[in-house]
């Protein structure tokens, strides 16, 4: 070292010494502040680690108590320089994955973040093959790390969106990893209630981490992902079923309960049928918003296409839109959709039709509903009766395979009429149901014939046996008589 440098070092030393107590303990910081300065130094001053008494050496290694650069930035003292790639996260994990260490600083933070990150989708290798895609510092920054609840943290609820979209809105970047993954989530998000409120400064609403997780983010197709189809309802329910949390928003919090009881809920959550809808199927993902009144049937219609088409062409479409009644929901409910039985149709108290139709009001519809209900009830009863008769004949051993085959048509007619209800047209409904009624009648007749034949055979056998018995007895007596006569003759 030359004289100038040594002099500068001496001045720096003075400056360091005159710094406040804390900084005096962190010689790295004080020295760097005085000399090279720069962003890292400025930011670290506000860093929570600094506040807790952790020096630069806490991450970079080395000896923070000495101002001698040789000693301080010495590999033998543990100095690792500026960590690159996976070294960064390992450096953080040195403390943050160590429960004892965290406790010693009075922290109750979880210590599984690093492990989660490694197992998450972000923990995969980057395209350069040398390091993981994401390091701790990617989201948390390196030197100005503050608590999550601190408004200046990049992972504070209001800031998360910006942090995630750094990569996830960059089409060129995302293309390197998953070309089919969309990059418009932010735009969509900003149209949703969550996104709008988030932009206005509401830190309670959902943002990226609320649904996707933070360290444990997995691909949506991964069964352990919080946004895997069967997990979506409970992820949404995390907030939306919490009455306390949702108090100020004044919307119901019973959707998850209702959904779990519904056909869709049972299918998705109990039977793990991935064909069944989760919250996002009807509400959308990032642009999550309940569908509008006149578009409900289109949303339901993505799966229930036939019903939706029929409904849109039916007189109910205009009637519902005029009265601002949501289309499918009015009769079937939205979250608590139960199995639609025949009871839903008709003019009884349990039927939905009677909510608007009565003999006095909307009488034409009343008549139609009544007629359709009676038709479908007869169809169901007749089909059941025909099936029972066929089974009985079969059990009795009669050849009835042809009639059994015909029964399929009755079954089909019943299913088709349940769909045809949504045209709300008695004529068309009758057309479909009649096919089933005719078939059921034919099958019942054939089965009854078979059962009659069964009885006929037994009666016939009885009569024939009677005839044969009479003949046999007479023959026997006749034989005896002949033999008696022969015996007499011989004597």
């Amino acid at each position, binding site marked *: 070292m030359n004289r100038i440098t040594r002099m500068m070092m001496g001045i720096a030393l003075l400056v360091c010494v005159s710094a406040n107590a804390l900084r005096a303990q962190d010689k790295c910081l004080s020295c760097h502040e005085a000399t090279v300065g720069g962003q890292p130094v400025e930011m670290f001053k506000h860093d929570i680690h600094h506040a807790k008494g952790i020096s630069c050496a806490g991450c970079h290694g080395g000896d923070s108590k000495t101002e001698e650069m040789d000693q301080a930035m010495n590999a033998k003292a543990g100095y690792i320089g500026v960590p690159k790639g996976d070294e960064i996260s390992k450096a953080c994990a040195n403390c943050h994955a160590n429960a004892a260490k965290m406790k010693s600083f009075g922290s109750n933070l979880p210590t599984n973040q690093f492990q989660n990150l490694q197992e998450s989708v972000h923990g995969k290798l980057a395209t350069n093959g040398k390091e993981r895609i994401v390091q701790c510092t990617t989201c948390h920054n390196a030197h100005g790390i503050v608590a999550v609840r601190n408004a200046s943290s990049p992972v504070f609820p209001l800031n998360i969106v910006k942090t995630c979209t750094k990569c996830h809105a960059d089409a060129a970047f995302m293309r390197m990893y998953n070309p089919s993954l969309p990059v418009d989530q932010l735009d969509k998000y900003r149209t949703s209630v969550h996104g709008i409120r988030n932009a206005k400064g509401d830190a309670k609403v959902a943002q990226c981490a609320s649904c996707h997780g933070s360290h444990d983010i997995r691909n949506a197709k991964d069964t352990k992902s919080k946004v895997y189809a069967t997990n979506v309802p409970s992820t949404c329910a995390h907030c939306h079923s919490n009455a306390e949390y949702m108090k100020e928003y004044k919307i119901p919090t019973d959707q998850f309960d209702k959904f779990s009881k519904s056909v869709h809920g049972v299918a998705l959550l109990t039977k793990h*049928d991935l*064909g069944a809808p989760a919250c996002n199927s009807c509400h959308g993902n990032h642009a999550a918003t309940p569908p509008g009144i006149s578009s409900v049937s289109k949303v339901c219609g993505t*799966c*229930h*296409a*036939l019903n939706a088409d029929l409904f849109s062409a039916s007189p109910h479409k205009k009637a519902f839109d005029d009265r601002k009644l949501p289309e499918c929901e009015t009769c079937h409910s939205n979250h608590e959709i139960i199995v639609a039985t025949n009871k839903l149709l008709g003019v009884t108290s349990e039927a939905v039709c009677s909510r608007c139709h009565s003999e006095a009001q909307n009488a034409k519809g009343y008549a139609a509903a009544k007629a359709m209900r009676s038709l479908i009830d007869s169809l169901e009863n007749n089909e059941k009766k025909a099936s029972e008769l066929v089974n009985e004949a079969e059990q009795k051993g009669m050849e009835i*395979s042809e009639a*059994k*085959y015909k029964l*399929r*048509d009755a*079954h*089909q007619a019943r*299913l*088709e009429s349940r*769909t045809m209800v949504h045209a709300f047209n008695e004529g068309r409904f009758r057309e479909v149901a009649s096919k089933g009624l005719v078939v059921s009648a034919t099958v019942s007749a054939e089965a009854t014939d078979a059962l009659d034949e069964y009885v006929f055979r037994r009666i*016939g056998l009885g*009569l*024939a046996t*009677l*005839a*044969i018995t*009479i*003949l*046999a*007895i*007479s*023959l026997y*007596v*006749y034989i005896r*008589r002949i033999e008696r006569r022969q015996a007499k003759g011989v004597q």
Partner: protein
Amino acid sequence: MAESTEPMDTQENRRDFLKYFLGGGLIAWLAAILYPMMAYLKPPKQAEVEVTSVKAGKVGAVEKDSGTIVRFGNKPVILLRNAAGEFRAFSATCTHLDCTVQYRKDMGLIWCACHNGRYDLNGRNVAGPPPRPLDEYRVVIQGEDILISKKA
């Protein structure tokens, strides 16, 4: 001799009685045999047994780009002929709720009228509620005849 005529009389009566029984029994028996036979010989309403499954008809009878339902024992089978003239056959029982599917020329695929289920021409379920593809059947052309059988 007069004493023996009495028993002879009753014996004669008994003989007649028996002869009546025998004769009557014989006639009844003949009726019990002949009636079913005569009824059997009378042709039933459906005069002939219908052609069913295995021989599904003649090649010439099925148009190109069409489909038809054929009865295979107790199950329906859909026989397809594509535009190139090749035959394929699948179970026509929809894997959703057992309705009978049909070929839709306008859609170029197999469609189920009950809940809008769709299968491609390989029998794979491609849209709607059906959870599984349709089972395929074997089609063999023997001269002019189309034979359908279960896939091994």
